């Protein structure tokens, strides 16, 4: 018996020793996977981020800009790469694939296969010397195979990890020849003996973020992709636009490398079609990305003529409508609503003709380049993914999810995020990532913090009484700097500068080994300031600041002299001058370093409770998710009962019984011991800041004062009350919501209606409300289908401008058309006319509308007229926004911190948003955001303290004359007057200060200064910019 026990024990111990443990595995390192990993890691879980390509980044890294803000895609994404790489709780496994999954929720064993990159990652410094010498070129996948790269290369300039990999096109791998790379690599990082490696990892939950595959345009051969040189896909075009693309940001066509001027886009390639190889659904992003590409094309070449052949324009997202108008209003841009087919390629010019329907028949027009707006399809290996992870797919090959929870798969403990749920844009991918992480948090709350690490640093040495002793470390960066800049002479020069106590050179100062040496030399030489002359601080400053902390020096005693990006790389043809400039840069840096001051980062305690404002579906979902992770939640609702807008919704397009769902949510909220509900509530006052809010409110419980660390605003939206089309004057006219209530109550007159007309875009897409309310098209189709189900004979006509049945909703649009629901388009300048008349002895609503296809006026006599009324911001949103120091956007909805990457965060820290208060959305989308907001809130609430940057503004009270100029100029309300022993003075709230220094420049007495960028520090650099000898010469 004893031996038996011992055997079990031994087996158990061996098991522990041989296994790698984590909390969550995120599979797929695109923007969605990255966000999920960051949220989980920050919320105290150990995460494995597995990516099959050599770097994280996904498709977003290939995009030039992102709509509708036209932010540079890489610039906003690459800081997240760094965050991942440096996160103590994220283990990055690139070039790695999942082989199998065993076990169950809470205890999965995932077998991974790490493919050989033939590079020892720890030794590779990313210097790319090997790339230079590699003799093999092959089509560069990152640039859509438009340009060439080497067999050994870094996937793209900002790749993470920044190490090379060797592709199978390598001569040595194919023919056992060459090995030049091994010979030139100074760190011995190349290892051709690497084999694929199997690793078992034990985790409690899995998030699948495999992303999408762009539709293969070759499957629609009639469009000529792959056959005709000047036909490209939209993703190819994205690379052509990009400064890091094949022609360095110049749009050139393949046939003659000329700049095309007449460019055509053809929409819906591979989408919205029931054809072999194509997909029936709408890809949801193509309309808007095409508009972006048109704007960018016009930026590149103001004379370009851009033509877009399209079906419906689906500008359903926040700010999309305005973006569409902006595009359409550019001179030289034509939107043509017509199916388009390729005519021919003209032999001499290689131009392409497009045939389309125009007034007076079919027209054929010549273009210099054709862009195919390809759709999004499920990952190529979707069936493998489904089999390995034991999940089901839907009929389109996307993941089958719970209709009320787009992140929940058919297997417990396996969640998804991003485009695996169907075609979605970046913000949706990011919100679902945070949402999936929150659901992992619910499942694994008991083990939060058990495997996570935080760094421990030695105590900081007080150097306030020491003279500056600067250490200067000049990096060769392999050959990147060393081949151009004479590094030894810069070291010698540095030693000649005042206060420099030590200087040395290093082959790669960023290597783990060199960083350790640096730390040691700081201690041994008694240095108190450090200058590293190497690459850009944007990627490497955090590493060296960390090194200073490890050496017991305040991390703000560090400055970086960028002699690579700003010197050797941009002056590679002027070695001598580059060396001189490197010295100038080092001199400026040393001067600055001498003036640097130690700064404290503030640790502020975090109150563990959350406040959720709004008790609709979004608010309740968010409250439950936070509460299930062990945090007290105060849920505040202005009405008598919970439920919000969903109380009036009975079913969804996908068939969810909303009332049953709502009842279940409400019951769960009331049953949860961690949630305290306040109804008939109104917020009186909000004070405090991230981690420490105090909110006072009046409710059914009387007056309450709530302390909370985070707040989620889910205040919902309202249905527009129409003033047009006889609404309120004739009871036969009603809104979609009113119709839905009547259907649910089995109203006989509705079921027996002999004719019903629906008018779309009532109260929106107009000058005074210039946005698309997103849900009304689906709402109309949903009710039409429901009515057809009750009474197939019922005659329904929907009058629309564009049917915006985006994503998988397209299928229901088709179903409605198949069931004989008639769709008639109208032009905004020629809206339907509505009058109450008596026809054939009964009162009807007569609708007159112009059918642009037939070119005829239609007369429709209907028993009922249904108005698809817009969704409008709720009345109280301005007040709530003001209380939480945020501002609503131009359409009156809450404004998120960043349209793409912070879709559920506010600019104000510690405050999050979700649901229709952000923008009209479907229930499933509101749920995604609600979980997303919970996930984001947990990244804050799971910590004991929140750290505020030391580079904030400070007031010298002796100098302050209390003029208030700084208070006016601050965009963040971080400065206010305070009573001090010296009287009324400006005072900075360090937590709110963002460190921009705008106030410094308006202060008449220089009383306010931004730490780390003080006048002294900046002036010292300016003083040093002119070399001493040069100054004399003048």
């Amino acid at each position, binding site marked *: 018996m004893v031996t038996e026990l011992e055997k079990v024990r031994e087996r158990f111990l061996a098991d522990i020793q041989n296994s790698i443990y984590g909390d969550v595995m995120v599979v797929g390192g695109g923007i969605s996977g990255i966000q999920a990993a960051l949220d989980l890691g920050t919320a105290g879980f150990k995460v494995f981020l597995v990516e099959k390509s050599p770097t994280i980044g996904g498709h977003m890294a290939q995009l030039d800009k992102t709509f509708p803000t036209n932010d*540079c895609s890489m610039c906003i994404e690459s800081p997240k790469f760094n965050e991942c790489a440096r996160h103590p709780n994220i283990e990055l496994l690139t070039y790695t694939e999942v082989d199998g999954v065993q076990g169950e929720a809470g205890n999965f064993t995932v077998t991974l296969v790490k493919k050989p990159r033939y590079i020892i990652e720890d030794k590779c410094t990313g210097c790319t010397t090997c790339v230079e010498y590699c003799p093999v070129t092959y089509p560069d996948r990152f640039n859509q195979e438009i340009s060439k790269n080497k067999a050994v290369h870094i996937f793209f300039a900002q790749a993470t990890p920044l190490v090379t990999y060797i592709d199978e096109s390598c001569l040595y791998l194919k023919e056992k020849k060459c090995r030049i790379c091994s010979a030139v690599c100074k760190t011995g990082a190349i290892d051709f003996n690497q084999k694929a490696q199997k690793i078992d990892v034990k985790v409690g939950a899995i998030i699948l973020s495999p992303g999408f595959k762009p539709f293969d345009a070759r499957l629609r051969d009639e469009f000529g992709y792959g056959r005709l040189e000047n036909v490209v896909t939209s993703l190819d075009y994205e690379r052509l636009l*990009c400064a890091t693309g094949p022609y360095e940001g110049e749009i050139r066509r393949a046939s003659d490398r000329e700049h095309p001027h007449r460019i055509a886009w053809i929409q819906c390639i591979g989408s919205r079609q029931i054809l072999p190889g194509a997909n029936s659904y709408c890809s949801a992003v193509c309309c808007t990305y095409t508009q972006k590409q048109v704007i960018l094309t016009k930026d590149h070449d103001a004379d370009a003529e851009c033509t877009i052949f399209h079906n419906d324009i689906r500008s359903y997202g926040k700010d999309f409508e305005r973006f569409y108008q902006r595009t359409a209003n550019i001179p030289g841009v034509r939107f043509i609503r017509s199916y388009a087919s390729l005519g021919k390629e003209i032999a001499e010019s290689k131009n392409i003709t497009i045939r389309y329907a125009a007034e007076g028949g079919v027209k054929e027009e010549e273009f210099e380049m054709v862009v195919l707006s390809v759709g999004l399809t499920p990952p190529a290996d979707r069936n493998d993914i489904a089999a390995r992870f034991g999940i089901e797919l839907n009929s389109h090959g996307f993941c089958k999810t719970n209709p009320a929870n787009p992140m929940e798969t058919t297997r417990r403990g396996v969640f998804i995020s991003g485009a695996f749920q169907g075609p979605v844009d970046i913000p949706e991918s990011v919100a679902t990532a945070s949402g999936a992480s929150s659901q992992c948090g619910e499942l694994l709350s008991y083990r939060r913090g058990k495997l996570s690490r935080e760094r421990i640093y030695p105590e900081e040495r007080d150097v306030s009484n020491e003279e500056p002793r600067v250490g200067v470390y000049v990096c060769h960066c392999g050959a990147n700097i060393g081949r151009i800049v004479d590094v030894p002479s810069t070291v010698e020069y540095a030693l000649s500068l005042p206060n420099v106590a030590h200087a040395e050179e290093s082959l790669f100062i960023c290597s783990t080994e060199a960083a350790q040496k640096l730390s040691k030399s700081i201690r041994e030489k008694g240095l108190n300031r450090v200058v590293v002359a190497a690459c850009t601080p944007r990627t490497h400053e955090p590493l060296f600041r960390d090194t200073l902390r490890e050496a017991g020096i305040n991390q703000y005693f560090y400055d970086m002299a960028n002699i690579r990006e700003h010197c050797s790389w941009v002056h590679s043809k002027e070695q001598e001058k580059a060396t001189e400039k490197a010295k100038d840069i080092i001199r400026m840096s040393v001067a600055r370093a001498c003036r640097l001051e130690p700064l404290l980062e503030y640790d502020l305690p975090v109150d563990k409770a959350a406040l959720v404002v709004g008790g609709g579906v979004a608010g309740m979902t968010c409250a439950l998710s936070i509460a299930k992770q062990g945090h007290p939640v105060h849920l505040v609702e202005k009405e008598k009962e919970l439920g919000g807008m969903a109380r009036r919704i009975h079913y969804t397009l996908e068939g969810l019984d909303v009332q049953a769902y709502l009842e279940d949510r409400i019951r769960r909220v009331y049953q949860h011991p961690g949630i305290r509900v306040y109804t008939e509530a109104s917020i009186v006052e909000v004070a405090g800041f991230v981690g420490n809010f105090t909110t006072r409110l009046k409710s059914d419980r009387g007056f309450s004062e709530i302390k909370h660390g985070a707040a989620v605003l889910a205040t919902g939206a309202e249905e527009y009350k129409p003033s047009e089309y006889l609404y309120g004057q004739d009871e036969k006219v009603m809104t979609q919501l009113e119709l839905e209530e009547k259907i649910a109550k089995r109203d006989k007159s509705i079921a027996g209606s002999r004719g019903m007309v629906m008018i779309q875009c009532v109260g929106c897409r107009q000058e005074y409300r210039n946005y698309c309310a997103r849900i009304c098209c689906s709402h109309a189709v949903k009710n039409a289908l429901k009515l057809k189900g009750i009474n197939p004979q019922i005659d329904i006509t929907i009058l629309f401008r564009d049917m915006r049945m985006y994503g998988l909703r397209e299928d229901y649009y088709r179903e409605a058309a198949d069931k004989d629901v008639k769709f008639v388009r109208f032009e905004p300048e020629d809206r339907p006319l509505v009058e109450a008349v008596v026809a054939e002895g009964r009162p009807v609503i007569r609708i007159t509308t112009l059918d642009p296809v037939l070119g005829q006026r239609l007369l429709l006599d209907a028993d009922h007229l249904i108005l698809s009324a817009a969704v409008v911001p709720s009345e109280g949103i301005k007040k709530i926004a003001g209380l939480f120091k945020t501002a609503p956007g131009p359409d009156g909805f809450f404004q998120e911190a960043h349209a793409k990457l912070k879709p559920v965060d506010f600019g104000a820290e510690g405050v999050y948003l979700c649901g229709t208060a952000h923008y009209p959305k479907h229930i499933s989308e509101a749920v995604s955001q609600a979980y997303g907001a919970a996930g984001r809130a947990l990244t804050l609430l799971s910590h004991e303290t929140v750290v505020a940057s030391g580079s904030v503004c400070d007031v010298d009270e002796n100098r302050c004359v209390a003029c208030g100029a700084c208070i006016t100029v601050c965009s963040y309300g971080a400065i206010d007057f305070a009573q001090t022993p010296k009287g009324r003075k400006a005072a900075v709230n360090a937590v709110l200060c963002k460190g921009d220094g705008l106030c410094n420049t308006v202060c008449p007495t220089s009383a306010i200064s931004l730490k780390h960028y003080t006048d002294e520090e900046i002036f010292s650099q300016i003083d040093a*910019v002119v070399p001493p000898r040069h100054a004399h010469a003048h």
Partner: protein
Amino acid sequence: MECTFEPVILCFCCQWCSYAAADLAGSMRLQYPTNVKILKVPCTGRVDVISLLKALEEGADGVFVSGCLIGDCHYVLGNQRATKRVAYVKKLVETIGLNPERVEMFYNSSAMGPQFAQCCRDFTDRIRNLGPVCKIEKTATGPTPEQRASA
């Protein structure tokens, strides 16, 4: 004379967009003259009148500020404030007899490496043509730097 003159040029870059554009110019290996030295600030809104004047006073022959594109400032309005300030400094230097072309404002998003390099080339050419800063370029409408120094 012209060919031996190597101007000293100081460039203030905001840490979000323009510094990144300068980095991108580097990773794209775009070449521009070595005359330009970059000073990183959190936001161009932090660059004050004194800093710009001081650069010229210390012997820089030209100074320019490179911020985010208008509307894209990470701190909302910083680059717009910098724009106004640069315009003001242009007037000031004109008053003291310097060519206002020695001071300029540019906008470069973090994706605009090529454009940043072009700014550096163009501005260096401009300053090279203007010659060293100490030369009073036209009749000053105010006291000369020398008079100011003695006062």
